[in-house]
């Protein structure tokens, strides 16, 4: 349990009063609390480091914690200080704010920790001075992006209760969610590649037979190519329809770029099917086939790099636009100049200004085909100026585009790396946490039983040994969980034990000396049975119990709780000391009857050591519920269908 939340434990315990009227059994007694609490000091004592300042300094900002009466909550009468359990290093900047009026953000500080401190002391971050504000905002933006990434990841992991349609959509968008999705992903990728290859090979001239001239493969093996094309288009159509079906917002899906590419890729084929063998129209039809090349864009779903490139181009749209604009300006200017410079020479290729455009573009991009060259001296001078400036104009916006691409690409890489590391981190955290909280509870259950045993035999030393490990906080938390168990008449068990209980489907018959008692209530009646059960041989008992352990001369409480129900996968008694299911012996179980036998040993009144008070003599319970608080060492049940047999 986190230390911060420990302060809320009193609240959680008080809220447990909400369970009381609902519970059918009495609650266990609460552990006692003998703690005294510290209070605050007049001097600002932040985690041990004392800061001193004038009261008027703090009063300068009355809407913050330190400047208002809110700090009275932190005042310590004895030491006359105000004590804050916060980070003293961060507190420096906060106190400096009161002194100088400017809030600074130290670079070494983590942004979220700093934010928390600010919120705690009631200072709004906008007050941060200009000197540090840029840094603060940048760090905050990075943090927000990181949180956004994490949230997206979490959303991916939300599995339960998704409709079929949602599952399909998730599978399409994220192929790593299931093997089916992965298979689908690879199959479509393969078919895209096949389709593109087919389109390309169609135009390659195949080997010429002596009778015919060289003709492209497409015309030689028409049927084969047609079949291939049909197959690919079928697959793409099916894929498109499935995506359309699964999309959460069909209208938006149809407007998205990828779906338009899909449509454009498969459309020519259908038009070709519909189209008759009309001469005029087939010319247009051939043109349409050009669109088949768009299929290659479908690869962008498969390649993250392509997507990043597309996204970069989109985000650099302004830079690209500027590049285009400046190039156009330069082209027009130089083309005009070249035209007029070459006008004089005869047989010149520069017939008009638009004709000079081609020369200018080829020169500015340093291609230099050489099909158009200036012949006059003026033309050559302006031509060289043109090529020099071409280099500059193109070189300028390109770094911006490159840096954008690089930033987005690296961000993506970081996100991928974080995702990969996250699983391992979470697993480690979970192991560390559950290790402490849950097993602590089960450990304490076992310890309580052990304590009761030890009480019986009166061995004090072992008692104290066991109780050292549990702090008051832990015992209070465990008490809270006990109350919940009592309210619902069920118990918490360890995960492994639960699995074992489920596996035990055989119900053995149990013969014992104690008379069995069948209940009329049905399975609910077993309320508030012993919270821990141990299995052991009683020296005087004639129960055919299995011997369990090496407790020496200790008499052990033995409680066998067997519940038979109609549908439950059942249970034999278990021993929480051993933490594994022991055989109790054959148990006879008929239908929905409950057979419960409990052996209890009346104990002398003594102080229990785990904090729970034993008030009054142990009581043997007759069917009506008991009046006093429960002594943990007593086997008692509140239900009317339990017989106790004492064996000493």
């Amino acid at each position: 349990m986190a230390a911060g939340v420990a302060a809320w434990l009193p609240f959680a315990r008080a809220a447990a009063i909400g369970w009381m009227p609902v519970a059918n059994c009495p609650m266990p007694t609460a552990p006692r609390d003998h703690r005294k609490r510290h209070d605050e000091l007049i001097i600002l004592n932040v985690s041990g480091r004392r800061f001193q300042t004038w009261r008027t300094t703090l009063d300068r900002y009355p809407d913050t914690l330190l400047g208002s009466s809110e700090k009275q909550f932190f005042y310590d009468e004895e030491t006359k200080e105000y004590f804050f359990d916060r980070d003293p290093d961060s507190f420096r900047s906060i106190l400096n704010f009161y002194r100088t009026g400017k809030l600074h953000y130290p670079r070494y500080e983590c942004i979220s920790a700093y934010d928390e401190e600010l919120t705690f002391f009631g200072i709004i971050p906008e007050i941060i001075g200009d000197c540090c504000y840029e840094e603060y905002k940048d760090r905050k933006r990075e943090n927000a992006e990181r949180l956004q990434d994490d949230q997206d990841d979490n959303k991916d992991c939300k599995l339960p209760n998704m409709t079929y349609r949602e599952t399909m959509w998730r599978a399409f968008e994220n192929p790593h969610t299931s093997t089916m999705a992965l298979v689908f992903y690879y199959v479509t990728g393969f078919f895209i590649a096949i389709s593109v290859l087919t389109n390309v090979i169609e135009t390659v001239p195949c080997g010429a037979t002596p009778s015919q001239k060289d003709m492209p493969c497409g015309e030689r093996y028409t049927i084969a190519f047609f079949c291939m094309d049909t197959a690919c288009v079928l697959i793409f159509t099916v894929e498109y329809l499935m995506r359309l079906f699964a999309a959460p917002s069909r209208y938006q899906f149809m407007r998205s770029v990828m779906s338009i590419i899909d449509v454009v890729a498969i459309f020519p084929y259908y038009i070709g099917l519909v189209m008759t063998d009309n001469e005029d129209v087939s010319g247009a039809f051939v043109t349409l086939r050009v669109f088949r090349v768009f299929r290659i864009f479908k690869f962008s779903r498969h390649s993250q790099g392509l997507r990043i490139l597309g996204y970069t181009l989109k985000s650099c749209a302004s830079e690209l636009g500027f590049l285009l604009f400046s190039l156009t300006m330069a082209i027009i200017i130089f083309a005009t100049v070249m035209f007029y410079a070459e006008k004089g020479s005869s047989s010149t290729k520069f017939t008009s200004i638009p004709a000079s455009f081609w020369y200018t573009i080829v020169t500015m991009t340093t291609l230099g085909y050489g099909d158009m060259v200036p012949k006059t001296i003026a033309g050559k001078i302006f031509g060289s100026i043109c090529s020099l400036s071409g280099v500059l104009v193109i070189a300028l916006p390109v770094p911006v585009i490159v840096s954008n691409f690089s930033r987005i690409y690296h961000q993506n890489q970081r996100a991928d790396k974080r995702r990969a590391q996250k699983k391992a981190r979470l697993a480690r955290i979970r192991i560390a946490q559950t290790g402490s909280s849950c097993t602590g509870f089960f450990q304490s259950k076992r310890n309580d039983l052990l304590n009761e045993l030890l009480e019986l035999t009166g061995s004090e030393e072992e008692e104290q040994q066991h109780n050292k490990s549990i702090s008051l906080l832990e015992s209070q938390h465990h008490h809270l969980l006990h109350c919940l168990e009592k309210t619902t008449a069920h118990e918490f068990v360890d995960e492994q034990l639960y699995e074992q209980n489920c596996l035990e489907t055989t119900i053995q018959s149990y013969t014992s000396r104690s008379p069995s008692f069948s209940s009329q209530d049905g399975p609910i009646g077993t309320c508030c049975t012993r919270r821990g059960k141990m299995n052991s041989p009683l020296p005087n008992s004639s129960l055919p119990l299995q011997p369990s352990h090496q407790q020496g001369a200790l008499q052990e409480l033995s409680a066998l709780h067997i519940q038979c129900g109609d549908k439950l996968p059942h249970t034999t008694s278990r021993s929480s000391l051993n933490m594994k299911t022991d055989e109790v012996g054959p148990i006879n179980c008929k239908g929905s009857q409950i057979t419960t036998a409990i052996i209890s040993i009346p104990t002398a009144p003594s102080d229990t050591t785990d904090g729970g008070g034993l008030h009054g003599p142990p009581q043997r319970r007759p069917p009506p519920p008991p009046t006093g608080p429960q002594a943990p060492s007593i086997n008692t049940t509140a239900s009317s269908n339990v017989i106790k047999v004492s064996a000493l």
Partner: protein
Amino acid sequence: MGAVMAALSLEARRRLSRPNREKVDSDLELSIVRHQPEGLDQLQVQTKFTKKELQSLYRGFKNECPSGLVDEETFKTIYSQFFPQGDATTYAHFLFNAFDMDRNGSIRFEDFVIGLSVLLRGSVTEKLNWAFNLYDINKDGYITKEEMLAIMKSIYDMMGRYTYPSVRDEAPSEHVDKFFQKMDRNRDGVVTIEEFIETCQKDENIMNSMQLFENVL
């Protein structure tokens, strides 16, 4: 020529980068909701806690919620930490509504401390009143079977999966039936506050357990 181009492009880039920052600014969240509680003395008058108790309560409260207000999500997170095995969020939701008396979606320190004062220092009748208020989800003065079933399910949810014996699906409704059998005197299908208090006062178990948490603070 090239120099002109370069100068133009530099100017354009500066102009281009500035709007981006403002856009980003508006994306970042700038709202700060904060609440300061009333003074220590006023709270002492309103509740039955001593000054020191109020101080320690506030410290814990403020630690977990520096802004002074607990919203429902934070509340659920805090409460769930005490019940690691089960799902405490539904019950935390009901608890939240029981504490948030003015129904504004967040618990202030005053609500918190007044609620606690009833629970820890109030008379048995006040505690029973509080419990009734908790069960009566729509605060109409009657506990119906559906309300009780919702509450019961949330309590059983806190137990989680790994229980002994396993929680069956009918367990909450059977528990509710038992509850109504005990509480609903006139068999009209709802439990009123008078029936509730009357029955609880006759039940020794309940009366004893009400005293259980007297010394929590």
